[in-house]
């Protein structure tokens, strides 16, 4: 429990840091890009919406920085992230709310699949050093170096354009009715296969390599030798003794890898024009839609923090030492 509380405290600090970065960034940049946007949309924006943008981007220079900061926080707590210019006049929170489920499902499912496959492959590779799995390492390091977005391009070129097996963009068939009905869900799964495959292939190698290295270290430990000497069945030694301990750094390192995978997944979404948050960020960047960019950054960071917290809980479950109250 103490462990989890400590982690929550740390994530709270990280969240605070992300929000503060968000607050400071527009105030560091000269030229008020938001002001020019506001001028362009003059007359179309309600006073209230304009006011919230003033608070978000520090356009009201009559107030002290500290007052601006307090006001900024107050606005965040009300869930007000300003108006999106790309999807004018939809509020940023609404745009994100629509796209977030797509990303959570796509990136969540494919990250978990990639983690499981990579970890199992790493266990096998580390267990049988010098075998076929060892020779796969240069190959996997090639795959882990492929940029997500280029792999996505290749996937489209091969499976969508040439073979025509899968659609090349979008998240569902536009002729279906979004909701809990089978035609829609089926088309969403069908559209999600290629992007998911891209993320799985790209993330697989990293997990495998990390797990393999830990396995190699762990299999030299005395308790593994003892387990062998006891005459335990090889599979039992492998999974119950070696892998069980070797997986700990993979789980605790989940945080570090997750940021990278999420970054890559966003690019994958952009290439596939997937209706998730990565594609929204892409549109926001193209249109210099600052409120939307900031909102997306915050939400992505928060999602990563939540995912990390889940990984921490899994860690507590896997490692009894964290549960002892010492």
């Amino acid at each position, binding site marked *: 429990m103490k462990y989890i509380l400590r982690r929550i405290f740390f994530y709270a600090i990280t969240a605070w840091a992300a929000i503060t970065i968000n607050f400071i960034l527009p105030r560091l940049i000269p030229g008020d890009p938001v002001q020019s946007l506001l001028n362009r949309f003059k007359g179309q924006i309600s006073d209230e919406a304009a006011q919230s943008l003033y608070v978000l981007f520090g356009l009201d220079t009559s107030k002290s920085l500290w007052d601006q900061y307090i006001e900024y926080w107050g606005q965040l707590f009300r869930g007000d992230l300003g108006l999106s210019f790309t999807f004018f006049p939809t509020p940023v929170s609404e745009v994100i709310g629509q796209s977030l489920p797509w990303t959570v499902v796509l990136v969540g499912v494919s990250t978990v699949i990639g983690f499981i496959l990579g970890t199992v492959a790493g266990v096998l590779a580390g267990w049988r050093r010098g075998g076929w799995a060892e020779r796969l390492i240069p190959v996997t390091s090639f795959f882990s170096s492929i*940029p997500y977005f280029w792999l996505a391009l290749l996937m489209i070129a091969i499976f969508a354009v040439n073979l025509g097996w899968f659609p090349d963009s979008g998240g569902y068939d536009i002729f279906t009715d979004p909701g809990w009905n089978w035609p829609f869900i089926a088309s969403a799964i069908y559209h999600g296969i290629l992007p998911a495959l891209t993320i799985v292939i790209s993330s697989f190698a990293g997990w495998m390599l990390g797990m393999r290295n830990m396995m190699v270290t762990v299999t030299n430990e005395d308790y593994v030798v003892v387990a062998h000497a006891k005459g335990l069945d090889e599979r039992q030694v492998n999974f119950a003794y070696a892998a069980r301990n070797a997986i700990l750094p993979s789980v605790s390192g989940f945080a570090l890898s997750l940021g*990278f995978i999420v970054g890559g997944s966003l690019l994958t979404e952009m290439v596939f024009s997937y209706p998730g948050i990565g594609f929204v960020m892409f549109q926001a960047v193209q249109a210099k839609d600052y409120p939307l960019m900031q909102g997306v*950054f915050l939400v992505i960071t928060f999602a990563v923090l939540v995912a990390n917290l889940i990984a921490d809980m899994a860690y507590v479950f896997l490692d009894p030492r964290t549960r002892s109250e010492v």
Partner: protein
Amino acid sequence: MTDIASETDVLLQADPRDQDRAAQKRHSPIAGFWRTPKSRVGLIILAFFVLLAIFGPLLAPYDPNALSDDLLQPPSWDHLFGTTQTGQDVFSQFMVGARSVMVVGTIAGLVATVISVIVGINAALFPGIADELLSALANVFLVIPALPLIILIAGFIPSGGGWITVALVISVTAWAWGSRVIRAQTLSLRNRDFVQAARATGKSTWSLITVEILPNLVPIIAGSLVGTINFAILSQVSLSFIGIGSSNDWNWGTILFWAQGQQALAQGAWWWFIPPGLAIAVLGMGLTLITLGIDEFVNPKLRPGGLDKKALKRAGVRSRVGYTAVLLEEEPS
């Protein structure tokens, strides 16, 4: 390990002078690093791309921006990598782009590594509040997803800034991992006997750092530098691919940006988007292999398992944990 085994055989037969030379060679760290197949392949790949960065722009046959009437031509002797929708020569864009990729990656990697060395060593040497703060800072930057942060910062800079700005933005987000590794290693070095002895003789903290600790950190720092360069190259290319960053500068991401924007995929113009992506992947593989080689160099346990499969079969051994370890330890004696 395989090498050690075969070398023992050689040593038994050779005359003593060769033996000395061979022993010397074996103990030279650089030679040992070079002999690891992973790092050798990695270094060769890296050397190729460094040459490409130096000479590529000079060898480009056309102006990468020049339009021509050869629209969307597949590769030919006139246009080695074919042409784009607007008749630009992809090979020239590729050659010119190599320099920007390598320069931005190297600068970002160097700056980030300098930050991580400073933060890591200071955190390890000044326990207490300084360590807590620096470590917390590093952890925060590790958890915040880097690419969205880079996109956000770069997006705020008017017209994306020049390539130096891009390199600096990347390095701001890329130092944390290295600093953690360096801190951990410094912590373990700090309590070793030779450092304690130097401290006892009254050496200043500065000379402790530069004379005793830094030389022992070199492999770790090198590994983190290579890893950071790898990350920086990927980030820069990703930024260009999204269309932010130095947009008037050619790099491999810019080529892919135009390829994607002008429907290279739908038109089957594989020559347009295959070479840049492949180059990024091969370069990344080279850098990863070097990092792995350094890891193995630092931690011999990670080296590929003992004898190769044929040798094992000859000895009637099935590669298995525990057993291999015993075999290896007896071999050199």
